[in-house]
Protein backbone atom coordinates (compact mmCIF):
# COMPACT_ATOMS: atom_id res chain seq x y z
CA UNK A 1 0.00 0.00 0.00
CA UNK A 2 1.32 3.43 -0.94
CA UNK A 3 1.33 5.66 2.11
CA UNK A 4 3.51 8.11 3.93
CA UNK A 5 6.60 5.88 3.95
CA UNK A 6 6.78 5.89 0.14
CA UNK A 7 6.42 9.67 0.10
CA UNK A 8 9.21 9.97 2.66
CA UNK A 9 11.54 7.97 0.41
CA UNK A 10 10.69 10.25 -2.55
CA UNK A 11 11.19 13.36 -0.41
CA UNK A 12 14.43 11.95 1.03
CA UNK A 13 15.75 11.27 -2.46
CA UNK A 14 14.90 14.83 -3.54
CA UNK A 15 16.63 16.42 -0.55
CA UNK A 16 19.64 14.11 -1.04
CA UNK A 17 19.92 15.33 -4.63
CA UNK A 18 19.77 18.95 -3.41
CA UNK A 19 22.55 18.17 -0.96
CA UNK A 20 24.82 16.62 -3.62
CA UNK A 21 24.14 19.38 -6.16
CA UNK A 22 24.86 22.01 -3.49
CA UNK A 23 28.21 20.40 -2.74
CA UNK A 24 29.20 20.70 -6.40
CA UNK A 25 28.21 24.36 -6.73
CA UNK A 26 31.30 26.50 -6.13
CA UNK A 27 29.29 29.70 -6.78
CA UNK A 28 27.69 29.33 -3.33
CA UNK A 29 30.05 30.68 -0.64
CA UNK A 30 28.27 28.59 2.02
CA UNK A 31 27.92 25.48 -0.07
CA UNK A 32 29.06 23.07 2.67
CA UNK A 33 26.43 24.41 5.04
CA UNK A 34 23.73 23.84 2.40
CA UNK A 35 25.15 20.37 1.78
CA UNK A 36 25.03 19.50 5.48
CA UNK A 37 21.55 20.98 6.07
CA UNK A 38 19.79 19.21 3.19
CA UNK A 39 21.84 16.06 3.78
CA UNK A 40 20.63 15.88 7.39
CA UNK A 41 17.06 16.59 6.30
CA UNK A 42 17.33 13.83 3.72
CA UNK A 43 18.59 11.42 6.41
CA UNK A 44 15.58 12.29 8.57
CA UNK A 45 13.27 11.51 5.64
CA UNK A 46 14.98 8.29 4.57
CA UNK A 47 15.83 6.75 7.93
CA UNK A 48 13.72 8.71 10.47
CA UNK A 49 11.11 5.96 10.86
CA UNK A 50 13.78 3.43 11.86
CA UNK A 51 16.01 5.60 14.04
CA UNK A 52 15.57 5.95 17.82
CA UNK A 53 13.86 9.19 18.94
CA UNK A 54 17.11 10.53 20.39
CA UNK A 55 18.87 10.22 17.01
CA UNK A 56 15.98 12.04 15.32
CA UNK A 57 16.22 14.76 17.93
CA UNK A 58 19.97 15.13 17.40
CA UNK A 59 19.45 15.40 13.63
CA UNK A 60 17.03 18.31 14.19
CA UNK A 61 19.40 20.08 16.57
CA UNK A 62 22.29 19.68 14.12
CA UNK A 63 20.13 21.14 11.31
CA UNK A 64 19.14 24.07 13.49
CA UNK A 65 22.76 24.81 14.40
CA UNK A 66 23.87 24.65 10.75
CA UNK A 67 21.11 26.97 9.51
CA UNK A 68 20.49 29.06 12.63
CA UNK A 69 24.06 30.28 13.09
CA UNK A 70 25.11 32.31 10.03
CA UNK A 71 22.30 31.09 7.79
CA UNK A 72 22.39 29.12 4.55
CA UNK A 73 23.81 30.29 1.23
CA UNK A 74 22.18 30.53 -2.18
CA UNK A 75 23.51 28.55 -5.09
CA UNK A 76 23.35 29.81 -8.65
CA UNK A 77 22.41 26.85 -10.83
CA UNK A 78 22.57 27.69 -14.52
CA UNK A 79 19.10 28.67 -15.67
CA UNK A 80 17.67 30.53 -18.67
CA UNK A 81 17.99 34.30 -19.22
CA UNK A 82 14.86 36.51 -19.32
CA UNK A 83 15.44 36.78 -23.09
CA UNK A 84 15.44 32.99 -23.52
CA UNK A 85 12.35 32.67 -21.35
CA UNK A 86 10.42 35.20 -23.42
CA UNK A 87 11.34 33.34 -26.62
CA UNK A 88 10.45 29.97 -25.14
CA UNK A 89 7.13 31.33 -23.85
CA UNK A 90 6.29 32.72 -27.29
CA UNK A 91 7.20 29.43 -28.97
CA UNK A 92 5.34 27.10 -26.59
CA UNK A 93 2.32 29.34 -25.92
CA UNK A 94 -0.48 28.02 -23.76
CA UNK A 95 0.88 24.48 -23.90
CA UNK A 96 3.09 25.59 -20.98
CA UNK A 97 0.05 25.63 -18.69
CA UNK A 98 -0.63 21.96 -19.31
CA UNK A 99 1.98 20.48 -16.92
CA UNK A 100 1.35 23.23 -14.37
CA UNK A 101 -2.35 22.40 -14.24
CA UNK A 102 -1.68 18.66 -14.33
CA UNK A 103 -0.50 18.83 -10.69
CA UNK A 104 -3.74 20.08 -9.07
CA UNK A 105 -5.92 18.12 -11.49
CA UNK A 106 -4.14 14.84 -10.71
CA UNK A 107 -4.31 15.68 -7.01
CA UNK A 108 -8.03 16.20 -7.37
CA UNK A 109 -8.77 13.12 -9.46
CA UNK A 110 -6.56 10.92 -7.26
CA UNK A 111 -8.22 12.10 -4.06
CA UNK A 112 -11.55 10.81 -5.34
CA UNK A 113 -10.28 7.76 -7.20
CA UNK A 114 -8.13 6.34 -4.40
CA UNK A 115 -11.05 6.42 -2.00
CA UNK A 116 -13.18 4.20 -4.21
CA UNK A 117 -13.52 0.58 -3.11
CA UNK A 118 -12.29 -0.79 -6.49
CA UNK A 119 -8.93 0.84 -5.84
CA UNK A 120 -9.00 0.10 -2.12
CA UNK A 121 -5.72 -1.13 -0.70
CA UNK A 122 -3.62 0.56 -3.38
CA UNK A 123 -3.21 3.83 -1.51
CA UNK A 124 -3.65 4.60 2.18
CA UNK A 125 -7.05 6.38 2.12
CA UNK A 126 -5.96 8.76 4.90
CA UNK A 127 -3.10 10.02 2.71
CA UNK A 128 -4.98 9.97 -0.63
CA UNK A 129 -4.60 13.74 -1.22
CA UNK A 130 -0.88 13.92 -0.45
CA UNK A 131 -0.11 10.78 -2.48
CA UNK A 132 -2.15 12.18 -5.40
CA UNK A 133 -0.33 15.51 -5.22
CA UNK A 134 3.06 13.81 -5.51
CA UNK A 135 1.69 11.58 -8.27
CA UNK A 136 0.69 14.83 -10.00
CA UNK A 137 4.33 15.95 -9.87
CA UNK A 138 5.38 12.86 -11.80
CA UNK A 139 2.54 13.27 -14.30
CA UNK A 140 3.61 16.88 -14.85
CA UNK A 141 7.25 15.82 -15.32
CA UNK A 142 6.20 13.15 -17.82
CA UNK A 143 4.43 15.84 -19.86
CA UNK A 144 7.04 18.57 -19.44
CA UNK A 145 10.34 16.75 -20.00
CA UNK A 146 9.63 15.62 -23.60
CA UNK A 147 7.78 18.86 -24.41
CA UNK A 148 10.70 21.01 -23.30
CA UNK A 149 13.37 18.53 -24.42
CA UNK A 150 14.99 19.05 -21.01
CA UNK A 151 17.66 16.82 -19.52
CA UNK A 152 16.58 14.87 -16.41
CA UNK A 153 19.05 16.87 -14.28
CA UNK A 154 17.36 20.17 -15.23
CA UNK A 155 14.32 19.84 -12.92
CA UNK A 156 16.58 18.98 -9.98
CA UNK A 157 18.78 22.04 -10.57
CA UNK A 158 15.70 24.24 -10.98
CA UNK A 159 14.24 22.71 -7.84
CA UNK A 160 17.43 23.63 -6.02
CA UNK A 161 17.21 27.21 -7.32
CA UNK A 162 13.72 27.54 -5.82
CA UNK A 163 14.51 25.67 -2.60
CA UNK A 164 17.51 27.96 -2.06
CA UNK A 165 15.20 31.01 -2.38
CA UNK A 166 13.04 29.57 0.39
CA UNK A 167 16.07 28.45 2.42
CA UNK A 168 15.67 27.32 6.03
CA UNK A 169 12.05 28.58 6.02
CA UNK A 170 11.21 25.37 4.14
CA UNK A 171 11.65 23.39 7.37
CA UNK A 172 9.95 25.89 9.68
CA UNK A 173 6.36 24.60 9.32
CA UNK A 174 7.42 21.07 10.28
CA UNK A 175 9.48 22.45 13.16
CA UNK A 176 6.49 24.41 14.46
CA UNK A 177 4.30 21.32 14.26
CA UNK A 178 6.90 19.56 16.42
CA UNK A 179 6.88 22.50 18.86
CA UNK A 180 3.11 22.12 19.13
CA UNK A 181 3.56 18.49 20.14
CA UNK A 182 6.07 19.45 22.84
CA UNK A 183 3.69 22.17 24.08
CA UNK A 184 0.93 19.58 24.32
CA UNK A 185 3.16 17.09 26.16
CA UNK A 186 4.23 19.77 28.67
CA UNK A 187 0.65 20.87 29.38
CA UNK A 188 0.80 24.37 27.87
CA UNK A 189 -2.79 24.21 26.63
CA UNK A 190 -4.16 23.36 30.05
CA UNK A 191 -2.21 26.23 31.63
CA UNK A 192 -3.65 28.73 29.12
CA UNK A 193 -7.17 27.39 29.59
CA UNK A 194 -6.71 27.92 33.34
CA UNK A 195 -5.67 31.57 32.81
CA UNK A 196 -8.57 32.16 30.43
CA UNK A 197 -11.17 30.85 32.85
CA UNK A 198 -9.58 32.67 35.85
CA UNK A 199 -9.73 36.03 34.09
CA UNK A 200 -13.13 35.50 32.64
CA UNK A 201 -15.66 38.27 33.20
CA UNK A 202 -18.69 36.43 34.52
CA UNK A 203 -22.26 37.49 33.97
CA UNK A 204 -22.47 39.12 30.57
CA UNK A 205 -23.21 37.13 27.43
CA UNK A 206 -21.35 39.60 25.24
CA UNK A 207 -18.25 39.40 27.46
CA UNK A 208 -18.26 35.60 27.27
CA UNK A 209 -18.64 35.63 23.48
CA UNK A 210 -15.91 38.26 23.00
CA UNK A 211 -13.53 36.50 25.41
CA UNK A 212 -14.04 33.29 23.44
CA UNK A 213 -13.62 34.67 19.90
CA UNK A 214 -10.69 36.95 20.76
CA UNK A 215 -9.18 34.22 22.95
CA UNK A 216 -9.33 31.83 19.98
CA UNK A 217 -7.58 34.38 17.74
CA UNK A 218 -4.87 35.26 20.27
CA UNK A 219 -4.14 31.69 21.34
CA UNK A 220 -4.01 30.69 17.66
CA UNK A 221 -1.45 33.44 17.05
CA UNK A 222 0.70 32.03 19.85
CA UNK A 223 0.39 28.39 18.78
CA UNK A 224 0.33 29.11 15.03
CA UNK A 225 -2.59 26.74 14.62
CA UNK A 226 -6.30 27.02 15.33
CA UNK A 227 -6.51 23.25 15.82
CA UNK A 228 -4.31 23.51 18.91
CA UNK A 229 -6.27 26.46 20.28
CA UNK A 230 -9.80 25.12 19.76
CA UNK A 231 -9.97 22.30 22.35
CA UNK A 232 -8.45 24.60 25.00
CA UNK A 233 -10.67 27.62 24.40
CA UNK A 234 -13.82 25.59 23.79
CA UNK A 235 -13.27 23.66 27.03
CA UNK A 236 -12.28 26.81 28.96
CA UNK A 237 -14.95 29.28 27.79
CA UNK A 238 -17.11 28.05 24.90
CA UNK A 239 -18.66 25.01 26.49
CA UNK A 240 -18.98 26.01 30.19
CA UNK A 241 -20.15 29.58 29.62
CA UNK A 242 -21.68 30.08 26.17
CA UNK A 243 -23.34 26.66 25.91
CA UNK A 244 -23.95 25.48 29.47
CA UNK A 245 -24.55 28.69 31.44
CA UNK A 246 -26.19 30.84 28.74
CA UNK A 247 -27.79 28.05 26.68
CA UNK A 248 -26.04 28.81 23.36
CA UNK A 249 -26.04 26.44 20.39
CA UNK A 250 -22.98 24.14 20.48
CA UNK A 251 -22.66 23.84 16.68
CA UNK A 252 -22.53 27.62 16.23
CA UNK A 253 -20.13 27.95 19.17
CA UNK A 254 -17.83 25.39 17.51
CA UNK A 255 -18.02 26.58 13.90
CA UNK A 256 -17.67 30.34 14.44
CA UNK A 257 -15.12 29.76 17.20
CA UNK A 258 -12.86 27.84 14.82
CA UNK A 259 -13.24 30.57 12.19
CA UNK A 260 -12.23 33.19 14.77
CA UNK A 261 -9.08 31.13 15.26
CA UNK A 262 -8.45 31.32 11.50
CA UNK A 263 -8.43 35.14 11.82
CA UNK A 264 -5.50 34.66 14.20
CA UNK A 265 -3.74 32.38 11.71
CA UNK A 266 -3.71 35.27 9.22
CA UNK A 267 -1.80 37.49 11.66
CA UNK A 268 1.02 35.34 13.03
CA UNK A 269 4.50 34.35 11.82
CA UNK A 270 3.95 31.12 13.79
CA UNK A 271 1.66 29.97 10.95
CA UNK A 272 4.78 29.69 8.83
CA UNK A 273 3.44 27.67 5.92
CA UNK A 274 0.76 30.27 5.20
CA UNK A 275 2.68 33.44 6.03
CA UNK A 276 6.47 33.04 6.16
CA UNK A 277 6.98 30.41 3.44
CA UNK A 278 5.07 32.37 0.74
CA UNK A 279 7.02 35.53 1.66
CA UNK A 280 10.20 33.57 0.96
CA UNK A 281 8.81 31.89 -2.16
CA UNK A 282 7.74 35.24 -3.62
CA UNK A 283 11.10 36.78 -2.68
CA UNK A 284 9.65 39.52 -0.48
CA UNK A 285 12.27 41.53 1.41
CA UNK A 286 9.86 41.84 4.37
CA UNK A 287 9.40 38.48 6.07
CA UNK A 288 6.04 39.71 7.41
CA UNK A 289 4.84 41.19 4.09
CA UNK A 290 2.03 38.65 3.65
CA UNK A 291 0.85 39.17 7.24
CA UNK A 292 0.74 42.95 6.66
CA UNK A 293 -1.54 42.42 3.66
CA UNK A 294 -3.86 40.23 5.75
CA UNK A 295 -4.14 42.07 9.09
CA UNK A 296 -6.96 44.53 8.16
CA UNK A 297 -9.14 41.70 6.81
CA UNK A 298 -8.36 39.52 9.83
CA UNK A 299 -9.28 42.20 12.39
CA UNK A 300 -12.51 43.24 10.64
CA UNK A 301 -13.51 39.60 10.25
CA UNK A 302 -12.77 38.87 13.90
CA UNK A 303 -15.14 41.69 14.91
CA UNK A 304 -17.70 40.33 12.45
CA UNK A 305 -17.35 36.84 13.90
CA UNK A 306 -17.91 38.17 17.40
CA UNK A 307 -21.06 39.97 16.24
CA UNK A 308 -22.30 36.92 14.30
CA UNK A 309 -21.73 34.64 17.26
CA UNK A 310 -23.52 37.03 19.64
CA UNK A 311 -26.51 37.39 17.32
CA UNK A 312 -26.80 33.73 16.29
CA UNK A 313 -25.62 31.49 19.12
CA UNK A 314 -28.41 32.27 21.59
CA UNK A 315 -31.12 32.26 18.93
CA UNK A 316 -30.93 28.70 17.52
Amino acid sequence: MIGLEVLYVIGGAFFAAISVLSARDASNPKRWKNTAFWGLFSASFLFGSHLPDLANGLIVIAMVLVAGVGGLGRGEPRTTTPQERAESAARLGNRLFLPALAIPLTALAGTFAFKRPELGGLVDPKQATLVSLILGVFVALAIALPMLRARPAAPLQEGRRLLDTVGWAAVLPQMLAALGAVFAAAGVGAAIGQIASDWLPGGSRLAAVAAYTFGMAIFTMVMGNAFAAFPVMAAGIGLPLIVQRFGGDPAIMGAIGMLSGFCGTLMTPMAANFNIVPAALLELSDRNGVIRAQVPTALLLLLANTALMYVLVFRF
Partner: protein
Amino acid sequence: MLSLIGIVVVVIGFMARLNPLLVVTLAALVTGLAGGMGPIEVVETFGKAFKENRYVSVVWVVLPVIGLLERAGLQERAKTLIGQIEAATTGRLLLLYLVLRQATAALGLTSLGGHAQMVRPLIAPMAEAAAESRHGALPDPVRQFIRAHSAAADNIGLFFGEDIFIAIASILLIKGFLEQNGIFVEPLHLSVWAIPTALVALLIHGSRLLMLDRRIDRALAEARP
Protein backbone atom coordinates in the same frame (compact mmCIF):
# COMPACT_ATOMS: atom_id res chain seq x y z
CA MET B 1 2.31 27.72 34.78
CA LEU B 2 6.08 27.35 34.34
CA SER B 3 5.51 25.58 31.01
CA LEU B 4 4.31 28.89 29.54
CA ILE B 5 7.92 30.10 29.48
CA GLY B 6 8.26 28.57 25.99
CA ILE B 7 5.62 30.99 24.71
CA VAL B 8 7.64 33.89 26.14
CA VAL B 9 10.72 32.59 24.29
CA VAL B 10 8.75 32.43 21.03
CA VAL B 11 7.29 35.93 21.36
CA ILE B 12 10.61 37.57 22.30
CA GLY B 13 12.54 35.57 19.70
CA PHE B 14 10.21 36.50 16.85
CA MET B 15 10.10 40.16 17.92
CA ALA B 16 13.91 40.31 18.12
CA ARG B 17 13.95 38.81 14.58
CA LEU B 18 16.28 36.00 15.61
CA ASN B 19 16.47 32.99 13.30
CA PRO B 20 13.07 31.28 13.77
CA LEU B 21 14.57 27.78 13.66
CA LEU B 22 16.74 28.64 16.67
CA VAL B 23 13.83 30.30 18.47
CA VAL B 24 11.48 27.35 17.95
CA THR B 25 14.05 24.77 19.03
CA LEU B 26 14.97 26.78 22.11
CA ALA B 27 11.28 27.19 22.99
CA ALA B 28 10.73 23.43 22.65
CA LEU B 29 13.72 22.57 24.85
CA VAL B 30 12.86 25.17 27.52
CA THR B 31 9.19 24.12 27.59
CA GLY B 32 10.07 20.47 28.00
CA LEU B 33 12.54 21.16 30.81
CA ALA B 34 10.08 23.48 32.58
CA GLY B 35 7.39 20.83 32.18
CA GLY B 36 9.53 18.39 34.18
CA MET B 37 11.25 16.36 31.42
CA GLY B 38 14.92 15.45 31.60
CA PRO B 39 17.32 16.82 28.94
CA ILE B 40 17.48 13.52 27.00
CA GLU B 41 13.72 13.09 27.20
CA VAL B 42 13.17 16.60 25.78
CA VAL B 43 15.40 15.91 22.77
CA GLU B 44 13.63 12.59 22.27
CA THR B 45 10.17 14.19 22.43
CA PHE B 46 11.16 16.91 19.96
CA GLY B 47 12.84 14.43 17.62
CA LYS B 48 9.84 12.11 17.64
CA ALA B 49 7.44 14.99 16.95
CA PHE B 50 9.67 16.27 14.12
CA LYS B 51 9.78 12.81 12.55
CA GLU B 52 6.01 12.34 12.81
CA ASN B 53 5.35 15.66 11.09
CA ARG B 54 7.51 15.02 8.03
CA TYR B 55 4.41 14.92 5.86
CA VAL B 56 4.25 18.72 6.24
CA SER B 57 7.47 19.07 4.19
CA VAL B 58 6.69 16.50 1.49
CA VAL B 59 5.07 19.23 -0.66
CA TRP B 60 8.50 20.64 -1.57
CA VAL B 61 8.77 17.82 -4.09
CA VAL B 62 6.68 20.03 -6.43
CA LEU B 63 9.53 22.55 -6.78
CA PRO B 64 11.45 20.76 -9.59
CA VAL B 65 8.43 20.87 -11.91
CA ILE B 66 7.61 24.48 -11.07
CA GLY B 67 11.26 25.45 -11.59
CA LEU B 68 11.44 23.57 -14.88
CA LEU B 69 8.34 25.35 -16.18
CA GLU B 70 9.67 28.73 -15.03
CA ARG B 71 12.85 28.00 -16.95
CA ALA B 72 10.73 27.47 -20.06
CA GLY B 73 8.93 30.78 -19.58
CA LEU B 74 5.72 29.87 -17.65
CA GLN B 75 5.64 33.18 -15.75
CA GLU B 76 6.23 35.12 -18.98
CA ARG B 77 3.40 33.26 -20.70
CA ALA B 78 1.05 33.94 -17.76
CA LYS B 79 1.96 37.62 -18.01
CA THR B 80 1.35 37.77 -21.77
CA LEU B 81 -2.04 36.14 -21.36
CA ILE B 82 -3.17 38.69 -18.76
CA GLY B 83 -1.66 41.59 -20.71
CA GLN B 84 -4.01 40.73 -23.60
CA ILE B 85 -7.13 41.09 -21.47
CA GLU B 86 -8.04 44.76 -21.51
CA ALA B 87 -10.33 44.67 -18.47
CA ALA B 88 -7.81 42.88 -16.25
CA THR B 89 -6.57 44.86 -13.26
CA THR B 90 -4.65 43.53 -10.27
CA GLY B 91 -7.62 44.01 -7.96
CA ARG B 92 -10.16 42.35 -10.24
CA LEU B 93 -7.84 39.45 -11.01
CA LEU B 94 -7.17 38.75 -7.33
CA LEU B 95 -10.88 39.09 -6.57
CA LEU B 96 -11.61 36.45 -9.22
CA TYR B 97 -8.96 34.18 -7.70
CA LEU B 98 -10.35 34.74 -4.20
CA VAL B 99 -13.85 33.75 -5.34
CA LEU B 100 -12.58 30.65 -7.19
CA ARG B 101 -10.33 29.59 -4.30
CA GLN B 102 -13.13 30.00 -1.77
CA ALA B 103 -15.72 28.25 -3.92
CA THR B 104 -13.49 25.26 -4.72
CA ALA B 105 -12.37 24.97 -1.08
CA ALA B 106 -16.04 24.93 -0.05
CA LEU B 107 -16.45 21.88 -2.29
CA GLY B 108 -13.51 20.21 -0.56
CA LEU B 109 -11.13 20.89 -3.46
CA THR B 110 -8.44 22.48 -1.28
CA SER B 111 -5.57 21.11 -3.39
CA LEU B 112 -6.52 23.36 -6.33
CA GLY B 113 -4.40 26.23 -5.01
CA GLY B 114 -1.35 26.74 -2.88
CA HIS B 115 1.66 29.02 -2.79
CA ALA B 116 4.24 26.81 -4.51
CA GLN B 117 1.92 25.29 -7.13
CA MET B 118 -0.34 28.21 -7.99
CA VAL B 119 0.64 31.59 -6.51
CA ARG B 120 4.34 31.76 -7.41
CA PRO B 121 4.13 30.37 -10.98
CA LEU B 122 0.77 31.81 -12.08
CA ILE B 123 -1.23 34.14 -9.82
CA ALA B 124 1.52 36.55 -8.68
CA PRO B 125 3.00 37.02 -12.20
CA MET B 126 -0.51 37.62 -13.58
CA ALA B 127 -1.31 40.15 -10.85
CA GLU B 128 1.95 41.97 -11.58
CA ALA B 129 1.35 41.89 -15.33
CA ALA B 130 -2.12 43.39 -14.93
CA ALA B 131 -0.56 46.40 -13.20
CA GLU B 132 2.34 46.56 -15.66
CA SER B 133 0.10 46.69 -18.72
CA ARG B 134 -1.45 49.88 -17.28
CA HIS B 135 1.53 51.54 -15.67
CA GLY B 136 4.67 50.14 -17.34
CA ALA B 137 7.55 48.79 -15.27
CA LEU B 138 6.78 48.76 -11.54
CA PRO B 139 9.08 49.95 -8.75
CA ASP B 140 10.15 47.16 -6.41
CA PRO B 141 7.99 48.09 -3.36
CA VAL B 142 4.82 48.06 -5.50
CA ARG B 143 5.84 44.74 -7.05
CA GLN B 144 6.31 43.23 -3.58
CA PHE B 145 3.02 44.70 -2.37
CA ILE B 146 1.17 43.00 -5.25
CA ARG B 147 2.91 39.68 -4.57
CA ALA B 148 2.04 39.82 -0.87
CA HIS B 149 -1.61 40.38 -1.79
CA SER B 150 -1.53 37.42 -4.17
CA ALA B 151 -0.48 35.14 -1.29
CA ALA B 152 -3.08 36.74 1.01
CA ALA B 153 -5.91 36.05 -1.47
CA ASP B 154 -4.93 32.37 -1.52
CA ASN B 155 -4.91 32.09 2.28
CA ILE B 156 -8.16 33.95 2.87
CA GLY B 157 -10.01 32.05 0.13
CA LEU B 158 -8.82 28.74 1.56
CA PHE B 159 -9.47 29.46 5.26
CA PHE B 160 -12.98 30.81 4.85
CA GLY B 161 -14.07 28.34 2.21
CA GLU B 162 -12.89 24.99 3.52
CA ASP B 163 -15.11 24.88 6.62
CA ILE B 164 -18.21 24.79 4.43
CA PHE B 165 -17.11 21.32 3.30
CA ILE B 166 -18.32 18.65 5.70
CA ALA B 167 -15.31 16.33 5.67
CA ILE B 168 -12.55 18.86 6.33
CA ALA B 169 -10.20 18.32 9.30
CA SER B 170 -11.38 21.32 11.32
CA ILE B 171 -15.05 20.29 11.11
CA LEU B 172 -14.16 16.76 12.21
CA LEU B 173 -12.14 18.22 15.11
CA ILE B 174 -15.12 20.27 16.32
CA LYS B 175 -17.42 17.26 15.99
CA GLY B 176 -14.94 15.11 17.91
CA PHE B 177 -14.57 17.67 20.69
CA LEU B 178 -18.32 18.07 21.15
CA GLU B 179 -18.80 14.29 21.14
CA GLN B 180 -16.25 13.87 23.92
CA ASN B 181 -18.41 16.23 25.93
CA GLY B 182 -21.59 14.30 25.23
CA ILE B 183 -23.00 16.61 22.51
CA PHE B 184 -23.75 15.02 19.16
CA VAL B 185 -23.95 17.20 16.05
CA GLU B 186 -23.97 16.34 12.36
CA PRO B 187 -21.01 17.67 10.34
CA LEU B 188 -23.54 19.27 8.00
CA HIS B 189 -24.96 21.25 10.91
CA LEU B 190 -21.46 22.60 11.66
CA SER B 191 -20.58 23.46 8.08
CA VAL B 192 -23.87 25.37 7.58
CA TRP B 193 -22.77 27.75 10.35
CA ALA B 194 -19.50 28.40 8.52
CA ILE B 195 -21.47 30.06 5.71
CA PRO B 196 -22.21 33.44 7.39
CA THR B 197 -18.53 34.01 8.14
CA ALA B 198 -17.57 32.87 4.62
CA LEU B 199 -19.89 35.48 3.10
CA VAL B 200 -18.60 38.25 5.38
CA ALA B 201 -15.00 37.27 4.58
CA LEU B 202 -15.74 37.51 0.86
CA LEU B 203 -17.40 40.89 1.40
CA ILE B 204 -14.55 42.33 3.48
CA HIS B 205 -11.60 41.02 1.51
CA GLY B 206 -13.38 41.44 -1.83
CA SER B 207 -13.95 45.13 -1.07
CA ARG B 208 -10.30 45.54 -0.09
CA LEU B 209 -9.24 43.94 -3.38
CA LEU B 210 -11.51 46.26 -5.37
CA MET B 211 -9.78 49.19 -3.64
CA LEU B 212 -6.37 47.68 -4.37
CA ASP B 213 -6.07 49.25 -7.82
CA ARG B 214 -6.51 52.72 -6.39
CA ARG B 215 -3.89 51.97 -3.71
CA ILE B 216 -1.49 50.87 -6.45
CA ASP B 217 -2.20 54.09 -8.40
CA ARG B 218 -1.44 56.13 -5.30
CA ALA B 219 1.74 54.21 -4.47
CA LEU B 220 2.96 54.75 -8.04
CA ALA B 221 2.15 58.46 -7.93
CA GLU B 222 4.27 58.77 -4.79
CA ALA B 223 7.11 56.73 -6.26
CA ARG B 224 7.23 58.87 -9.42
CA PRO B 225 7.06 62.54 -8.47
